[in-house]
């Protein structure tokens, strides 16, 4: 126990750096996947056949394959097969490749949630808008969108919390997020070798961060409670 207390400051420093990468990947994924998911949702609801089936095809591919394989393909494929390592070998390249994979992956999941939210708004709402002489655009932004947002908060919360933990998959392409940082101590890092507890200690970071997220998302849900 005494040894752990001694190692604590060094370990916490290293884990903080790792967790910063985790957070960066988390926020970049959200910022990218929120709008992209909407685009894909429109694609799969489109009345233009090819676009509709294409969007559904993309969603099928992305949801049907493991994110870990997608990370490996997106990072290594350009260099291995096309002989053009577009991402580069450095830390920033690994981050970009990871962010690209995560945005694409989560956008596909989000798109299905959006679609459910949009199609869950009663058709009468749209008809009422048409009767009032609103354009399709007005109907979407003024009537459907807000009701959709209210409906999708619970399923989106689920995905967002899963995303926090999924970021650890990025270590497969050697993105040095918090699990990587914790595992490094098992082998030897920052002068500490053979310490197993930092790896388990990373769970505390996830738990606290997800606790905060749960509170915020719960508050958002209550804020949107003014119409049912």
């Amino acid at each position, binding site marked *: 126990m005494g040894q752990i207390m001694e190692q604590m400051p060094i370990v916490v420093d290293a884990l903080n750096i790792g967790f910063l990468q985790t957070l960066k990947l988390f926020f970049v994924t959200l910022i990218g996947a929120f709008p992209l998911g909407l685009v*894909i949702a429109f694609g799969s609801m489109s009345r233009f056949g090819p676009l509709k089936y294409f969007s559904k095809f993309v969603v099928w591919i992305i949801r049907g394959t493991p994110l870990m394989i997608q990370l490996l393909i997106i990072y290594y494929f350009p260099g291995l097969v096309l002989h*053009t390592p577009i991402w580069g070998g450095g830390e920033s*390249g690994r981050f970009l490749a990871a962010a690209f994979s995560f945005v694409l992956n989560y956008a596909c999941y989000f798109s299905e949630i959006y679609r459910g939210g949009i199609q869950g708004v009663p058709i009468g709402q749209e008809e009422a808008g048409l009767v009032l002489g609103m354009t399709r655009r007005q109907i979407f932004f003024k009537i459907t969108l807000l009701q959709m947002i209210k409906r999708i908060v619970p399923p989106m919360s689920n995905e967002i919390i899963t995303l926090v933990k999924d970021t650890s998959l990025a270590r497969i392409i050697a993105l040095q997020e918090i699990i990587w940082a914790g595992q490094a101590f098992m082998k030897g890092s920052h002068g500490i070798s053979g310490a197993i507890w930092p790896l388990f200690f990373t769970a505390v970071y996830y738990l606290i961060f997800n606790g905060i997220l749960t509170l915020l998302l719960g508050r958002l849900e209550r804020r949107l409670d003014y119409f049912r």
Partner: protein
Amino acid sequence: MKKLVVFMLTMVMVFSLTACGGSDDKSDSGSDGGASSGTESGADSGSGTSDGSDLEYVKDKGTLVVGITDFEPMDYKGDGDEWIGFDADMAKAFAESIGVEAEFVEIDWDNKIMELDGKTIDCVWNGMTLTDEVTSAMECSNAYCNNAQVVIVPASEADKYQDTDSLSDLSFAVEAGSAGEAAVAALELEYTPVKAQSDALMEVAAGTSSAAVIDSLMAAAMVGEGTGYADLTYTCGLNDEEYGVGFRKGSDLAKALNDYFATAYADGSMMECAETYGVQAAIIEQ
């Protein structure tokens, strides 16, 4: 709404290139790289590097990207932020000798060959044992350092397991694809492959495996009195082996490094570097 549709179609186009790239032939996929480049300024132009000299490719870039893992005493971070160690220092000196700068990148050891072939790194220089798998997939330098695989057991049971004949009732944890796995497989011992040598140590510490096999250099640094695994110790060695540096298959960098090793050994700078990190006894004459 029209703008949205246009944007949507554009995104879909980008996806189609990414998603279907796998089955395209090369001339087609060329546009794929074009569509999504712009993400990394250091990206290479692509054409012309596949058949040219790897040495020239690295010289053009100005950096030798060295794939490593955190592995004391070969590649590790001291007090500062800089990578040091016998391998790290030699890599810096070699890079300087060909007029480029060494850049160190931590990699997932399982993916080292993909990293090399995908040109995200230029060499693997991290106390890598020259096994058949390694030499068939990479262009390797001459061996520069001796090593052995040793058996790790709890210190309380060490007396029972001092030679290879006594090992048959142990269940081993070994790093997948490592020289240690090859050694226990050759002895027909029961074993579980795990992701890293450090995971193998954790298995023994946690009691989920009764023994592990890891590198002797690593064992010396990581188990026994005053380390994180004070209750473990190492007993007999299973086989002798040698470390080398791996480059892309067919790369002329391997020859350049062999020449450099010969020079550095002759002028004493290699031994001097080895003494700094306490590995002088293991160095092989070049």
